[in-house]
């Protein structure tokens, strides 16, 4: 499995990095920070976490910080409303079941990569 | 306030039956009584005889199962709370003081039936409150917190609140219960004074001698029914009292006041 993940990482390494915020719902919105499983998955799939400076793996985030952060793409759980001030930023739903680490992880990384770089040749 | 302008009785019941919901027992049975305006009327009887129920019926707070109760000639149940509170002031047996308040605040509540949601008390309201306090010899208590009053002081203050309603009629449920001799006398003198100003007073009491001495008429209730009704001399007789209270008594004339004096006897073994 590690080999398969390395494979995904290599393929996306040369593509331009996408600054993405991972919203996992809640009021105030919660985002994935460094050291989280989702953060690592984003890295493998060719993205940079817009909240790499967060001090916790998961945490709430102030709506005004969210509104002023430079973000290329919002990755959110289906059903999470897009917060105020972010409607101009493209948004994609996180693949279902992505939050649970396990054998589906390789598929999750692949589908995340597809969301980040839909135009890249596979 | 024109007290007792209606020609008929101020308080009246006709063949009144009262039953509380969910209970098969009648608490009042075939009670007919009438209180003339400007008189002091006392209701006597053992605990549970129906004295408080009679008050509730006269105020329209319980619906008669049969017969009717009238306040100022109008069926008691037809009075709206606000109009009723202008006609009759009531001093209930007890009340709870949930939050701290002063005597003046408590007595000012007697003005409620004259105020609307947005109006604030006028100079007249304040002077009525002050008069009521003076009348009850409680003017100096005005700034005191209610929970610091003695039993006698509190009772005078509650009567002042009822008087602040400027009612034609005052109804008091055991106003002298748990008061000592001097405070009891103060209340009785005060009620006599209220009657002499033209108002009607109905009270319940366990104090037979004082009731006989200060009342114009008495009603003796026994298990919800009228045992005797009339002047103190008519009602306070040993035969009726023994039957109602289940205790031997003798009735003599008090050498000082000349009114009936009830002396309970030791029970024969």
């Amino acid at each position, binding site marked *: 499995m590690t080999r398969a993940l390395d494979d995904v990482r290599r393929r996306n390494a040369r593509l331009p990095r996408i600054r993405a915020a991972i919203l*996992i719902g809640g009021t105030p*919105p919660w985002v994935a920070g460094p050291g989280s499983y989702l953060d690592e998955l984003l890295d493998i799939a060719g993205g940079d976490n817009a909240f790499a400076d967060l001090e916790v793996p998961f945490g*709430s985030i102030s709506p*005004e*910080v969210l509104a002023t952060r430079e973000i290329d793409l919002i990755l959110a759980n289906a059903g*999470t409303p897009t917060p105020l001030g972010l409607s101009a930023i493209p948004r994609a739903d996180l693949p279902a079941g992505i939050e649970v680490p396990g054998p589906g992880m390789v598929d999750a990384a692949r589908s995340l990569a597809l969301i980040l770089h839909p135009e890249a040749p596979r | 306030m024109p007290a007792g302008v209606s020609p008929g009785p101020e308080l009246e019941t006709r063949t009144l039956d009262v039953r509380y919901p969910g209970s098969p027992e009648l608490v009042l049975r075939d009670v007919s009584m009438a209180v003339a305006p400007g008189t002091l009327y006392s209701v006597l009887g053992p605990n549970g005889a129906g004295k408080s129920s009679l008050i509730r019926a006269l105020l329209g707070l319980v619906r008669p199962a049969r017969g009717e109760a009238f306040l100022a000639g109008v069926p008691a149940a037809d009075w709206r709370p*606000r109009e009723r509170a202008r006609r009759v002031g009531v001093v209930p047996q007890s009340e709870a003081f*949930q939050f701290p308040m002063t005597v003046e605040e408590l007595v000012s509540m007697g003005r409620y*039936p004259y105020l609307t949601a947005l109006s604030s008390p006028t100079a007249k309201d304040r002077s009525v409150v002050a008069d009521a306090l003076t009348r009850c010899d409680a003017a100096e208590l005005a700034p005191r917190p209610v929970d610091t009053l003695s039993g006698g002081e509190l009772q005078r203050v509650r009567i002042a609140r009822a008087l602040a309603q400027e009612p034609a009629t005052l109804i008091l449920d055991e106003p002298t219960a748990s008061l000592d001799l001097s405070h009891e006398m103060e209340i009785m003198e005060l009620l006599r004074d209220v009657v002499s100003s033209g108002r009607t007073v109905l009270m319940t009491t366990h104090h037979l001698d004082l009731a006989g001495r200060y009342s114009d008429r008495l009603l003796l209730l026994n298990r919800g029914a009228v045992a005797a009704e009339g002047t103190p001399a008519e009602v306070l007789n040993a035969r009726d009292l023994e039957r109602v209270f289940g205790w031997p008594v003798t009735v003599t004339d008090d050498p000082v006041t000349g009114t009936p004096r009830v002396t309970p006897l030791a029970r024969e073994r």
Partner: protein
Amino acid sequence: MTRSGPAALSLGFALVASVAISVGMGAVPLAPGEIVDALRGVGSDTARMIVVELRLPRALLAVLVGGGLALAGAVFQAMLRNPLAEPYILGISGGAAVGAVSVLALGLTTVGSWTLPLASFAGALGAIVLVFGVARRADRSMDVRVLLLSGVVVGAFFSAVIALILSLSEASVVRSAVLWMMGSLAAAEWRSVLVVGGYTLPAALLLLGLARPLNLLSLGEETATVLGADVERVKVYAFGIASLLTAAGVGVAGVIGFVGLVVPHGVRLVTGSDHRSLLPLSFLAGGAFLALADVVARTVVAPGELPIGVITAFVGVPLFLVLLRRNR
């Protein structure tokens, strides 16, 4: 009454100040000049976004919700003649939570951002209908003890329903539900301010109109009746309006504890328990208190936020103890 004039002035000032502080402070530092420019409609888009679209509506919503909860709490304490009464005592929070958790579990939040507040408001209304229905069935005159008991029982039932839904839900739903139950004003926007304001202010005015009968009711129902209050009608209005007020707050901000319990007591300690001053002052104090609590909630762990219920308890308890000490 003598102390309520100055108290009203200082609380009014505190309310304005708390809104100003709310607009001035946040996770993103802004200079006073930037804030003033943003309020005048000039300046950078970012500052305008933060000040006009995020901070200002959030401050106003805090005032409306905090004021409404404190006012409802004062009314519940008077009606139930119980100093421990608070706005959620009749199971309203449980009903609202069932509504919110259902929407989260069914994934209905995709439909629109209004589904969650609307569902929790509907749940709160359902709780009110249920609690009053049960109480009314047991006792036609709406004995407050029966009502209290009915609220506790219905609340316990809702807790079981919530536990059932959550135990069948996936982790992300559980997290969202728990966060919702701790309360937050982060969802504030102008639309919610207008809806809640258009609803809270008339309700508050109606409750203020009940101040005199509430004074009488503190002496007991029998005394209130003979003093001229229409006790049955007052009960229906006071419980109904205070419950609806609570439902609006819980719908838009989740369950925010403590404000409705302690603010009325704090006001009572300072100005006495005459409801003519207690009710309006509770609204002012509750509004200012919640606005300030929200400032703390969104700045102490910036860029994160704390649930506001944590702040209301942490700030409110010491504040209340100081008041209690000073007045003994």
